[in-house]
């Protein structure tokens, strides 16, 4: 029996580029180059490791995003995923996280799954809540923010390093998991992997394929509205001194002046 794994990956603006907002106050996806969210590489990596351990497994990478989001899927395929699904529809523009979880839950069900693997957070929105929402929608356990995980005997177990404690978690499959950047370095695609990725199946779905209406998603379906976005004023250049033996004294004087000591 084959283990069906779906990995949710997001195509995001490059964090080292110039990120900003479009006129309608949605994330400007033109301003900076896009790429596979670095935090989702960890999800792809863990999915591939689980698949390698399993007797038989199939790894599908799934994204919801604009046309260029196929770049993220190709990258994941070149790392070793078997096939890809791209949900793309003009009506998706401006979808909030609740809407995204609706679309992805439908797409995950469309593909079929035993295990859904997500990243810990997207590097643009960075809410870190989609995996929990997906579990709620699918009605399956959420085993999230894992630094370590394994799948065996129809169960997923893992370690969650929380704010106050480290927890060992366990749940029966099917389940939704998310993994942190502590879970293990992601592999680089090999040349062979990059070549093979070009021939792997990539399915494109729109809202009607998932039995969804435009009103449930996009800006129309969103339950939050951004009212203003202001660029944070650049911090005014501070004073910089070079230490020639007196640096600590000067710094202490600054801290005293600001009443920290």
């Amino acid at each position, binding site marked *: 029996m084959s283990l069906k794994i779906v990995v949710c990956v997001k195509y995001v603006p490059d964090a080292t580029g110039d990120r900003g907002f479009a006129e309608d106050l949605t994330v400007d996806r033109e301003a900076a180059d896009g790429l596979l969210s670095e935090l989702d590489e960890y999800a792809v990596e863990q999915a591939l490791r689980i698949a390698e351990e399993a007797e038989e497994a199939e790894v599908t990478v799934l994204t919801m995003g604009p046309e260029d989001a196929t770049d993220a899927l190709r990258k994941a395929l070149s790392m070793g995923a078997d096939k890809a699904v791209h949900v793309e529809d003009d009506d998706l523009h401006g979808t909030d996280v609740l809407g995204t979880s609706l679309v992805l839950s439908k797409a995950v069900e469309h593909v079929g799954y035993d295990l859904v693997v997500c990243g810990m957070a997207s590097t643009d929105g960075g809410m*870190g809540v989609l995996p929990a929402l997906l579990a709620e929608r699918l009605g*399956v356990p959420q*085993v999230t923010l894992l630094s370590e995980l394994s799948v065996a005997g129809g169960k997923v177990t893992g370690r*969650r390093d929380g704010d*106050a404690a480290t927890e060992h978690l366990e*749940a029966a499959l099917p389940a939704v998991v998310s993994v942190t950047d502590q879970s293990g370095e992601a592999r680089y695609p090999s040349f062979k992997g990059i070549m093979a990725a070009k021939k792997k199946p990539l399915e494109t779905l729109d809202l009607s394929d998932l039995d969804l209406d435009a009103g449930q998603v996009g800006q129309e379906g969103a339950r939050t509205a951004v*009212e203003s976005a202001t660029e944070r004023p650049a911090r005014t250049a501070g004073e910089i001194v070079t230490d020639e033996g007196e640096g*600590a004294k000067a710094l202490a004087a600054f801290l005293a002046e600001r009443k920290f*000591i």
Partner: protein
Amino acid sequence: MAEVLVYVDHVDGSVRKPTLELLTLARRLGDPVAVFLGAGADTAAPTLAEYGAVRVLAADAPEFADYLVVPKVDALQGAAEALSPAAVLVPSSAEGKEIAARLALRLGSGLITDAVDLEAGESGPVATQSVFAAAYTTTSRVTEGTPVITVKPNSASPEPAPAAGTVEQLTVEFGPLATGTAVVSRSPREATGRPELTEAAIVVSGGRGVNGAENFAVIEALADALGAAVGASRAAVDAGWYPHSHQVGQTGKTVSPQLYIAAGISGAIQHRAGMQTSKTIVAVNKDAEAPIFELVDYGVVGDLFDVVPALTEEVKARKG
């Protein structure tokens, strides 16, 4: 006046500071009603009352500790449906965000995470957020349902405003998903005796420049002289020099202290994401070109092994 639900973050009944900040912010929107889950409600109630809770809805059941997230969502959902509050506020921890998200979905409400400020608006609360590694500040509003909002630590200073804080039992019906994810074991983080990283007024962080686990003693000594928490860059954490729970940045903690001191940290965008909103920023780095200097109020170009210990001595001398 409308009621506002505030989810209480606590350790065995000892209420954590972000909850007091939430109670303070909640008063701008209505009468705070605290939801306390787990053991220790009687210990917590006087503190919650002092900071403005008109009522404390308390529930204790083994499910809260034995299973992940969902039992708490079940409880909060019950409270929200019974009260029809003007908003639900939850502290922005990893768990808090997951609880809030699932609650919003169940209530058919909009969700805002990581607010850094909250005001009453004409059509509901207006939340301020800091996005794209704090390069932008946005204001947002929930347009449907009961607003569910998570608020970051250090977003307000807790102000006492004594209220009744009557403890009432909250009956919870656990749904079929409550027992889905078992917490097989839990080891609480060891107390360091230093302030909590996200709550501290001063944070001293070390990076790759610290060059070894044993050298973090230099950072800790300055932190202790200032009464500060200790942070670390991802490079220092990945090298195994300091625990991951102290990482500051995009994939670590976001801090917003009065004073942030970065020693041996270059100031990569992912690190900035976690500290850029600090009120005063100071850096010690031997490379004058390090990007961290673009952010600082005061910078010292120099070797941290000279500057930091000497600063520690200065601080001790001045504090007497």
